[in-house]
């Protein structure tokens, strides 16, 4: 049975527009779900319950008056490095705990203008770097949700919210989306404004989106960029290149899964050639490493001197070692970055997208945020990239497929991703115990988009018993801590 928490963003907009759904009822149901689940998952840093209910009521009034935005009534979680007026932007950093933003970040203002409802702030790793956040993976509590957009991935996967904002400097949107079994999209560099976003490494930082369907990502990206991605544009099978460099570095279950994905796409008519990158993967990673480390050091060195004990161990080392890198290396890295970008752009020009695993592995233990190797090259080059949840491994953890397109070809990538999602299907959500009073959708369920199908012939079915069983092992019986509210 479909609950309000299961509605996609597009379904929400359709129902609010048709006055079949009250935005207030939806927000109330999600707040109830968050109250019931977040003590275990810890996705939320701040839940703005009162403000969200008031904003939802305003959306209902607008709908009654016939004023409807493209994201009308859609609740959104915002990563806690992005400013939301009236809420703290703590960035996982204790000295920022009471740093209340006075204005919305540009991307948040855009969301509100499109009719979205800001539900609150979701946890980030400290300053969107690599020291793990408190958030747990909804599929298994002993596994990382990934990072740095840990709360974004977990909140969307746990059906606490249909849409969340994340940021990515290495792999911080794609990886949590992959580990949590959601769709994650990082657009071309600079295509979503970073104004009002705490930077980590300014030439690598991107704002991205996490949702449950490609369609919702396309809807949101269109609202944020004033474009209208044509979801139906892709009717012909795409030309893809399966990147062997990444397959060779993937864990066996990931490699086998991508081989199967490629076979299914071929069977549906796609052209899938196996090739290697036109440049050395290790050079891409080296250039990314040096630029990121130098920029992180430039941004944080002064603050680290003031608050040495408040920095996480991994970020602190990054800042300190970054201070030692000579300028000549950084400048050479930047020049190489442009050369590498030209080479990859040229290789992508003749095809629709690269095909590769999103991560080298399924979600590892929560002492790490995972391996950035498969995502960092695209942050370096500023190319658009998207991850789709396309299967589960033998442990019942999500496996994901990544598509990468040429810079500026975001709409085309979303169309290719939509085609692939229709062919590959998606995974069933983690089997989390819903709150007792969770509202059910009263009216008849509309026809689900093809990409929302939960299984495909040959796809391993979800194993509903595995996730809750694991979570039961993790439970301690202690009184759960409630998320803070503002």
């Amino acid at each position, binding site marked *: 049975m479909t609950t309000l928490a299961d509605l996609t963003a597009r379904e929400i907009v359709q129902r609010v527009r048709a006055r079949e759904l009250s935005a207030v009822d939806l927000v109330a149901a999600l707040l109830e779900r968050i109250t019931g689940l977040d003590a275990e998952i810890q996705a939320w840093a701040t839940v703005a319950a009162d403000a969200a209910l008031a904003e939802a009521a305003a959306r209902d009034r607008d709908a009654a008056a016939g004023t409807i935005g493209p994201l009308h009534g859609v609740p959104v979680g915002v990563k806690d490095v992005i400013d939301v007026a009236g809420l703290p932007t703590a960035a996982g950093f204790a000295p920022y705990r009471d740093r209340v933003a006075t204005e919305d970040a540009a991307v948040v203002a855009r969301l509100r203008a499109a009719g979205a409802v800001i539900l609150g702030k979701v946890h980030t790793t400290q300053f969107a770097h690599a020291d793990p956040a408190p958030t747990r993976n909804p599929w298994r509590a002993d596994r990382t949700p990934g990072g740095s957009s840990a709360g974004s991935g977990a909140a969307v996967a746990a059906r606490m919210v249909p849409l969340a904002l994340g940021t990515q400097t290495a792999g911080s949107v794609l990886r949590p989306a992959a580990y949590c079994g959601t769709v994650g999209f990082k657009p071309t560099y600079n295509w979503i404004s970073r104004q009002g976003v705490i930077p980590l490494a300014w030439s690598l930082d991107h704002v991205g989106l996490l949702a449950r369907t490609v369609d919702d990502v396309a809807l949101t990206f269109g609202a944020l960029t004033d474009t209208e991605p044509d979801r139906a544009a892709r009717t012909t099978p795409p030309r893809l290149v399966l990147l062997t460099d990444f397959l060779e570095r993937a864990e066996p279950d990931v490699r086998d899964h991508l081989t199967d994905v490629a076979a299914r796409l071929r069977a549906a008519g796609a052209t899938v050639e196996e090739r290697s990158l036109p440049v050395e993967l290790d*050079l891409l990673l080296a250039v990314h490493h040096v630029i990121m480390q130098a920029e992180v050091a430039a941004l944080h060195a002064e603050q680290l001197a003031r608050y040495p004990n408040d920095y996480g161990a991994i970020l602190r080392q990054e800042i300190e070692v970054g201070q030692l890198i000579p300028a000549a*290396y950084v400048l050479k890295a930047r*020049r190489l970055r442009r050369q590498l970008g030209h080479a990859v752009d040229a290789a992508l020009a003749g095809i629709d997208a690269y095909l590769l695993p999103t991560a080298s592995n399924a979600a590892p233990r929560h002492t790490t945020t995972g391996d950035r190797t498969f995502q960092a090259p695209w942050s370096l080059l500023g190319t658009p990239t998207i991850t789709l949840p396309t299967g589960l491994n033998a442990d019942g953890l999500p496996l994901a497929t990544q598509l990468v397109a040429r810079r500026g070809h975001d709409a085309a990538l979303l169309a290719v991703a939509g085609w692939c999602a229709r062919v590959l299907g998606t995974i069933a959500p983690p089997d989390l115990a819903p709150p007792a009073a969770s509202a059910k959708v009263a009216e008849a369920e509309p026809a689900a988009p093809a990409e929302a199908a939960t299984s495909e012939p040959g796809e391993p079915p979800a194993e509903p018993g595995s996730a809750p069983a694991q979570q039961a092992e993790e439970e301690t019986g202690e009184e759960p801590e409630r998320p803070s509210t503002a």
Partner: protein
Amino acid sequence: MRPPTGATMDYNTPRSLRNGPARRAPRGLTRGAGSLRLLSTADLRPSRSPLATTGQANGETGTTVKLDAQLSEKKVLAQLRRMAAETFGPMRTYEMAGTLERTAGALARIAAVPLDLRDAAPDTSGVNGGGDA
């Protein structure tokens, strides 16, 4: 290490946890009795710790990592370790061993790639390649 002008420093923090070990004022110009006194050129030699001098025989400088395609990853790492020890102290250097190794690997790889000065990417400003502050 004295904090830069205008910055604050928690003096309760152990020296090893601050931004660097104690240092003397830079040599060269010293202020005395309200006037500046130029020291002799012999006094202008850069100060180096005993650790820093050990790499000189290998063509490494004591204060930075030279951009040199011939430098092996091992030599880059040795030099980075020296710099870290001078700047942050031996304990922090020990704690950041893994990060230093990864960075040394990246630096050595970047140094090893030849740059064609007439290549199609002459701009290092980053304006188009991603660089808005």
